């Protein structure tokens, strides 16, 4: 068998073969080990890995869509029975099969039962997000409102967290420390962080050691407008 230079090819071969032979296992997949669980949408580097990948020429061009379709048969993610799995008597099975066939045809075409395009790829989802209206002015405003509302929500949430200690008449040193710890995890990762430019891992919450002179200063570091080079979004 020909080997292909790209590492994920084997996975794809397996997937297509799987679909062709109408793989319909309902077995519970074993919990993946922690080390295997990570998403690759974000690289360590500013370059968006996913973005660069989508622009590279697809090496899978050689494969044509197998007759069974590349998508698994209609199934709800929770593993409940699919159309094909419903127990049916012999005389029903042909009509069930015909219905399933119809459904599969729609899925292969990437459309819903009404004929609307389904969002299958990241790219389609991205486009749907970015283009809310044909009129560019309106589109711009829609996004503006969205940003404002998300930001408002974030600030209200932050306010709630602050009020946890500010409104606590029984606040003790211990409670305060725990609150700081809990929210340090939340906030130290934030671009900018609570205390300004804080590298991940260093404590931006001062400890109780007497020699530590840094006071906790929750000045929000606002997202830079133009300074920070944004990775190109493809």
């Amino acid at each position, binding site marked *: 068998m020909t080997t292909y230079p790209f590492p994920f090819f084997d996975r794809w071969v397996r997937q297509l073969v799987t679909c062709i032979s109408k793989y319909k296992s309902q077995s519970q997949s074993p919990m993946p080990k922690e080390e295997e669980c990570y998403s690759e949408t974000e690289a360590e580097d500013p370059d968006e890995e996913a973005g660069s990948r989508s622009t590279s020429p697809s090496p899978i061009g050689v494969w044509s869509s197998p007759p069974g379709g590349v998508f698994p048969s209609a199934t709800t993610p929770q593993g409940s029975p699919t159309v094909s799995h419903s127990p049916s008597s012999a005389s029903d099975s042909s009509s069930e099969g015909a219905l399933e066939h119809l459904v599969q045809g729609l899925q292969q075409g990437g459309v819903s*039962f009404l004929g609307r395009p389904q969002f299958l790829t990241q790219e389609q989802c991205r486009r749907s997000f970015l283009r809310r209206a044909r009129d560019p002015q309106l589109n711009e405003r829609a996004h503006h409102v969205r940003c404002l509302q998300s930001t408002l929500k974030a600030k209200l949430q932050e306010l709630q967290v602050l009020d946890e200690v500010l409104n606590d008449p029984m606040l003790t040193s211990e409670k305060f420390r725990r609150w700081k710890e809990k929210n340090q995890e939340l906030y130290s990762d934030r671009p900018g962080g609570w205390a300004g430019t804080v590298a991940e891992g260093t404590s931006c919450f001062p400890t109780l050691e007497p020699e530590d002179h840094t006071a906790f200063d929750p000045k929000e570091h606002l997202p830079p407008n133009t300074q920070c080079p944004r990775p190109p979004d493809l």
Partner: protein
Amino acid sequence: MEEEDFVPGDLSLQERQELENIRRRKQELLADIQRLKDEIAEVTNEIESLGSTEERKNMQRNKQVAMGRKKFNMDPKKGIQFLIENDLLKNTCEDIAQFLYKGEGLNKTAIGDYLGERDEFNIQVLHAFVELHEFTDLNLVQALRQFLWSFRLPGEAQKIDRMMEAFAQRYCQCNNGVFQSTDTCYVLSFAIIMLNTSLHNPNVKDKPTVERFIGMNRGINDGGDLPEELLRNLYESIKNEPFKIPEDDGNDLTHTFFNPDREGWLLKLAGGRVKTWKRRWFILTDNCLYYFEYTTDKEPRGIIPLENLSIREVEDSKKPNCFELYIPDNKDQVIKACKTEADGRVVEGNHTVYRISAPTPEEKEEWIKCIKAAISRDPFYEMLATRKKKVSSTKRH
């Protein structure tokens, strides 16, 4: 420090200083929040007054009706509220149903959205709306043509189910004896809609024949078959003339504005050689999870289409309140970021699992609930199969 500021007893001087910083931060936040609210109101006003000739009518009433329609098209609930408040519409389900049925100046997507809502009142309006349709002596295809043109069917399975159930009931009410049960009518309606898509949508390669159409509907008349001639007629009708269905022409205002199912900060395990947790602003909307570095970013940093994904809670050694998004059945399958190109090529996806940590257990629960609801947005095939089984096996011994 103001007099009314409470200073808890056992804090060190340093801690009190920190608390003071936090108070200052709160004041900043309150100012930010007010500013944001003002700006949102301002931009919303701008949007609502984006000109159209309707608004230049002289009479106050006409202006209000036009405004009401415009509001409806952006947010049906608000539009109806506005019209009721201005005495342009009565707050009864019959009146509102009439308003929607007439549909003058109304966007069909908005009508569909309103009729599909789960609220008790909306359901009553749906039934009143359906009652306004006269299906007597129409065959099923004719009835569907009329029904599906009167509003745009939403995408969510639950909504579709409610609306098609109402349709089926009304059809059977108007045409007694054609079908043994409402379920039969329901199942056949879907078969017809899917037939329409299969026959007329260029993306669907496999075009069903009339024999196959007849075959797939065996036994749906409560265990028995429907007359072949009936099915043939329905098939021919669709073949000769596709459904006319209201579509989004890009000028639909109803889904222009974001109305996310949920949004908030979450930690995401990001990969590569060294795995780190990154804090991202997540937005769940349109059956997709988008995430951003800042809330003010116009474009998402990453996108997770939710179709065909599963979600489960997990324990993580480093972070609390974790859950994962994964593909069920085969853990080697990639999370879908794939599609079949027109010439049959498959373009790749590239992730195995997304691991996410929420700030509190409550938030974790809420996120899981919302994501599950979004994932199961299209299990209507499952619903359809259940109903079909029901009608096919009704007369079984």
